[in-house]
């Protein structure tokens, strides 16, 4: 289980937090065209790589915060734990030995 660095509590098991997904900014509700608004509602970059995402420390300090995580390697941009990366080779993607 991922250790998630809550800015207030410190590293916590991911299960202690609520994942909130890809961050995106809210268009002005009075100006937005239906296209823009619905792209805010539904469309996502969903990158295979670095993703900025929201977390909520739901069973701890109740802070909403964002962090950057690589969706293919599991790395966090601010390395939390030293020594978690596989040096040399990419982490197994499960489809190859």
């Amino acid at each position: 289980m991922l250790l998630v660095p809550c800015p207030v509590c410190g590293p916590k098991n991911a299960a202690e937090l609520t994942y909130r997904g890809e961050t995106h900014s809210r268009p002005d509700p009075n100006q937005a065209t239906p296209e823009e608004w619905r792209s805010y509602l539904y469309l996502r970059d969903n990158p295979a790589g670095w993703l900025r995402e929201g977390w909520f420390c739901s069973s701890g300090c109740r802070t909403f915060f964002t962090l950057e995580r690589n969706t293919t390697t599991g790395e966090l941009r601010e390395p939390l734990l030293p020594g978690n990366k596989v040096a040399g080779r990419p982490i197994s993607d499960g489809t190859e030995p």
Partner: protein
Amino acid sequence: MADPVFRSSVTSAETTSAESTSAAAVTISDVSDWSKCSVKAGEGTETAKGFAVALGTAAQRNGVLVVHHRQHEWLLLGSAAQVDETIHNLDRDGFVSTVDLTHGRMMLRVSGPRSADVLAKVCSSNFDDAFTPNRAAWGATVARVTCDLVRDDQVGVRSYLLLCDRSYGDYFFQSLLDAADEFAD
């Protein structure tokens, strides 16, 4: 009219049996009748300075245990009189609010040399002295219930206060008793 009767949320019969002698490896007692008050204020305010408790820790202030478990929030635990007095004397500058949580939170004390082992069966927090020294305060799930935890050793004996929503009372108490079972002597 009859005088109001205060009742704890722990209604199960075992309540008393868990409160055994202090020599036991672990004792679990229901201390829900403590006064519990939440104070919210900005981090740099006079109110905050008045408490002088670092985030993530707790401290005794005039007989009240002041728990700074969350940003902008303090939990005052103690007797009704002392908590009321602390609230009364708060140095309120700017935006400060208080809510009495006495009735909304149930509180257990888990004490004894094996208390950390009991909690380690139902909570993923690290109970090692280095991570949760005496007077550490934090939030975590315990037996799948969201709790506030405070390490509050009693004359050198390891001890924890656990607060959760009142409605979980029976379930929560039973879960801890069950976890403590293997350490019963």
